[in-house]
């Protein structure tokens, strides 16, 4: 049985899933830090 070689597409597929996913996790983390800093700033202003 001849199995087609689609390994390149497999790698590409996993890349397009995991790269944006990691970017999203990073965005959650940076937003969290930013909001924390904002809150500390705003509470000090008061």
């Amino acid at each position, binding site marked *: 049985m001849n199995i*087609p*070689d*689609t390994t390149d*597409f497999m790698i590409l597929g996993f890349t397009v*899933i995991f790269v944006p996913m990691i970017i999203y996790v990073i965005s959650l983390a940076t937003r969290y830090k930013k*909001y924390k800093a904002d809150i500390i700033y*705003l509470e000090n202003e008061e």
Partner: protein
Amino acid sequence: MKEKPIGLTILNVISVILLGISLYMSLVFAPVEVNMGNVQRIFYTHVSVGWLGMIGFLLALVAGILYLVTGKKRWDIIGVAGVEVGLVFCFLNIISGSVWAKATWNTWWIWEPRLITATIMELIYIAYIMLRQSIDEPDRRARFGAIYAIVGFVSVPLTFLSIRIWNTIHPVVIASGDAGADTGMNMTDNMQKAFFFALFTFTVIGVTLLWHRIRLGFLSDKIEQLKMKMVE
């Protein structure tokens, strides 16, 4: 919103471990699919991210209903979290599907019911974000968001059922009985194990990410309140 809850830390660790195992199962444990080759291995993750996206939208629906019933702000915050996570993962579902399509159908995109309905679903929730951005009063924003999340959810079961309503070349995974016998994939035992494990993994990842996103929502709400106080 104090320190990070211990449950969330545990979930973080579990998510990463599960993701590792799931990747191992789809890359090594599951056998190669004979007709499509290795590219079929993204199937486990491809379906799971789509599943997670739909969970996000379902959460937005439930939160929307609860917001309209109770009027509690927390449901609004949870609803937004559901939509955002849903949008991200449905997008991953679409682009990974596109790569798979290129490998098996030799085209990045075809106009086929599943792809159309999934795209419509994505567009609806982008419109949800735009709707929220163009309303200034927080109460009205929450109310309209909840309503739109309810109306827009109609697209989710449609997307799920689209491959059953219309004839299509998109494979039916959870085929009932003889339906889709010709288009359905014949999964071997190990493939099924990898598939259900991936679904479970991404459900856990979803819970973790939603929790993080909801915490973020509460923080930004607190900021808004602090700013309001300063204006007064």
